[in-house]
């Protein structure tokens, strides 16, 4: 039983780290926001495994649900600024 849980935790953790890296180093902003949403979704699953259902519900409802939506709302309003801030020398990662 616990071997299964450890394996699942391991997979979930790898998924979270990959999602986080995609979010930080990815080129497009919407993908980054979705990746962050994914991170907190996987986190809420992990919380269930770590025997804390309350936190899992909160993280799912607020962490991934609402904040991802807040981001998309604001992104929708500031579409023009999506590309700002990338140094013109062509950001080396992607």
């Amino acid at each position, binding site marked *: 039983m*616990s071997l299964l*849980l*450890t394996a699942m*935790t*391991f997979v979930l*953790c790898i998924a*979270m*780290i990959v999602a*986080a*890296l995609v*979010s*930080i180093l990815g080129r497009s*902003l919407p993908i*980054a*926001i979705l990746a*962050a949403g994914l*991170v*907190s979704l996987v*986190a809420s699953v*992990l*919380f269930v495994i*770590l*025997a*804390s*259902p*309350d*936190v899992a519900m*909160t*993280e799912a409802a*607020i*962490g991934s649900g*609402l*904040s991802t939506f*807040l*981001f998309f*709302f*604001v*992104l929708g*309003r*500031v579409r*023009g*600024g*999506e*590309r*700002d*801030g*990338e*140094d013109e020398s062509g950001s080396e990662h992607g």
Partner: protein
Amino acid sequence: MIHLAMATGFLLILIGFYGAVSNRNILRMIVAFTIADSGVNLVIVAIGYMPGRTAPILDATVKAGYAAARIIDPVPQALVLTAIVIGVGVTALMLAYAYKLYEKKRSLDIAKFTELRG
């Protein structure tokens, strides 16, 4: 299992900080901060976990009398609840600021807002 979760949490925090410090786009910085927040939440929940025990809910399986031997530490969970909500509150505020900053200078590049210096 705990160390794995906690290590992931710390790694997420570091990735979040790196994202916040290296990207000059304000929205990306805020995304990075949400990732760091998720990392913190993960670390805190990992602290509360004790192998082989169950969630701190008294129901049919976990009788009130001998709950102490069956449940994990409920205090970190209570704290994480507050931490998540505060994290969202601050993120919402930062998004509003990002919107206004964009409205003022039509740019989301943090380096453009350096009038106050020295």
